[in-house]
């Protein structure tokens, strides 16, 4: 069964870019694309919708990406949620920090839309 993909970013243009990038999956595989504007909203949607993959920005108001990632991974019910961190931070220490918090992957802004699509396909196994 096709899963859901959640995009969490406070920048509306980035949300739009990701939505449009992932549209192909919606069209071809019936994957539902969900969006959230901050970490708190992202947590609510993750808890409610239980998406298969979450593209998660780090620098966000209310709750940053690391926190969201940690909470998701601390909840036994959401162990199968796969998180891809998206951030402008490109340093090795940040990458490690993110992977420590439970993220599956780490993509650096500016990212290539094709790369995002490829990652999403791999994680959804479609």
């Amino acid at each position, binding site marked *: 069964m096709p899963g859901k993909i959640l995009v969490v970013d406070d920048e509306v243009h980035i949300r739009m*870019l990701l939505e*449009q*990038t992932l549209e192909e999956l919606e069209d071809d595989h019936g994957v539902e694309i969900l969006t959230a504007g901050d970490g708190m909203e992202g947590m609510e949607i993750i808890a409610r919708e239980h998406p298969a993959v979450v593209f998660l920005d780090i620098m966000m108001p209310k709750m940053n990406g690391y926190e969201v990632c940690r909470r998701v991974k601390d909840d036994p019910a959401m162990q199968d949620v796969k998180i891809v961190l998206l951030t402008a931070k490109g340093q090795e220490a940040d990458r490690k920090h993110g992977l420590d918090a439970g993220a599956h992957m780490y993509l650096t802004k*500016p990212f*290539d839309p*094709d790369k995002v699509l490829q990652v999403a396909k791999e994680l959804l196994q479609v």
Partner: protein
Amino acid sequence: MFRHARPLLPRTFWRFFLPTLCVVAAAFVAATAITYFTGLSIFTANHARSAGALLASAASGYRHAVSDIDEFRRHHLALQRAKLREALSDVAAVCSLYRGLAASGRLGDDEAQRLALAWLRASPASGQSEPAILAAAPDGNGGYRLLAVNRPMADAPSQLLRDLEAARAAASGDGLAEPPFLFATSVFSERTGMSPHLATAVRFEPWNWLLVAGLSMNAYKLAVAEKESAALRGFGAYLVQVASDMGGELVVFGEQCEVAATSAPAMEHHRLGGVWTDRCRAMIAAAGKNGEDRQPAQGSLAQPANKGPREVFWSMRIPGESLYAGFVIPGSLLAASAREFVDTLVITGLSAVVVLGLALTLLLAGLLGPVTALTDAYRRVMSGDFTVRADENIPGEIGDLCRQFNAMARSLQELLQTEQLRQVELDEVNKTLENQVRLRTEALANKARELEEANRRLQEMDLLKTNFLQNVSHELRTPLTAVLGFAKLIHKDFQKHFAAFAKDDLNLFERSGRLLRNLEIIISEGERLTRLINDVLDLAKIESGRMDWNDETVDMSPLLLSVAETFRSRSVESGVELNVQVPDGLPRVVADRDRFTQVMINLLDNAFKFTAAGEVRLQARERDGQLCVEVGDTGMGIAADELAKVFDKFHQTSRRDTLRDKPPGTGLGLAICRQIVLRYGGRISAASRPGEGTTISVVLPAARLAPQAEEA
């Protein structure tokens, strides 16, 4: 260091005193020894002289004694003869009386002869002191007939009478001559014992009688013996007297060792044993060796059983006598005399040494006292007391020394005072200087604080700059992400969905182609902007020390080969050959793998970028314990004036015309490479000939690993 304990006397004192005392003591010992042996010989010679004198005295004393005895004997013999003559003349007178009576006719001749003989018989002859008288007449046969005798007789005196007659006849024809005297022992001896007698005879011619008188010699002999004895006693006493001071024994003895006299009668027991005989024989032998010389012979005798020192003797033969005189003195006595002498000498010598020592002590103490005082003064000067003065009133060289010392001390005192004045001035100057220094120090401290503050502010600024750069990069990335992302989406969507529509319309086809190229320019410039942001951020981080380095020991061969591999496709596309010479077993280096990969990518990217034809060369080798990597090309090269600036930030080649179709760089690549290489203790350099190519060399020190770590 000068305050050690003072000795009672100065050390110099002992240096002079002890050797002098030793020399004196040695001289004293030598003198004593020489004196002892010389003294011993002098003593012996003295004793020899004394002994000679003694022996001479003994000899002359003995001669006196002998002559005394001879005199005595002659005198008594004369008395005896007189007595005999008197007795005979008495008898002759009686006979003459009776002959006269007969001649006068008063008596017959026979009667007269009978009466005379009767008188003769009756004459007293008792005892030994009165002479025996007899009368005899020739018997005609050559013999004599005894007529009368006043004492019974042992034997007929025929032979005596014959001898007397013969002697008388031989002496003189007349009766006035001295009658002969003969010793007649047998005639007058009694039956009780032999008795030596002196006899004489006269002839009474008228009757042809021979009148004989004999007198016993016993009394004479006794008297002579007594006289001899007395003389010898006297001689002995004389010997005792002359030898009393000499301590030895003076003895006169005969050939058979019979002692005539001795100065030590108490030693009589010595004569009994063989000891005396041995001694006597030795003395006789010694005297015999000396012959007739008057000088006494000297010899020595062992004590019986070798007890004690040998005895010394001098002996000589008494001239004209068969007697010897000897003087024996115990060796110990002689040695004792010498020892006594030496003892006296030793006591005197030791006293002299002690007196000399005391004198030397006083002299040296007097001499060294001022020296010690000078030393004390010197010590006080050393300890800083310059007011001390030595005694200047001492005469001589030491006095000169003291005066010189005082002059020196005065100079030192003056110098010290000058120095103290100078010190006061110096202190003043120092104080001023200290004040100035304090002020300056405070000023400096203020300045340092200001600098610290400035530094802190600079650091803050630096942090702000880095944070700012990070924030800016973050804030730039978000819109850049949108721009790049949408450009790529548009490019993709346009190619996928709209390009097909323009195929048929040439005008539309060209337009769509331009649209796509313009979109590619947006994407390319967007990517360049991304690189620029990344490079600026990296450089800022490296320069501010905030870069996170992931240091590890890197095996360079695989790393270089894998980097080279990523450029294979580019080599094929551009037609520039990629020549890789990377041997196995290059030394490992400590580095951040990703950063070093970034360096190599940068260098190879530059090489391809600036090379139109020919080759790009990647060479690596070990040299002197270092890893040397070279990236060379056959490109346009770098002008000499640009070569020094290639590692500067934001430096890009001025010859943009040759790269018109290539994407421009950020101008930070080589600067970042240099920072990374420097970070790991290496160096990077560029060599180039314009038109021929460029070679960039990177040298990194090999990692120093423990063997097991290398194995791992």
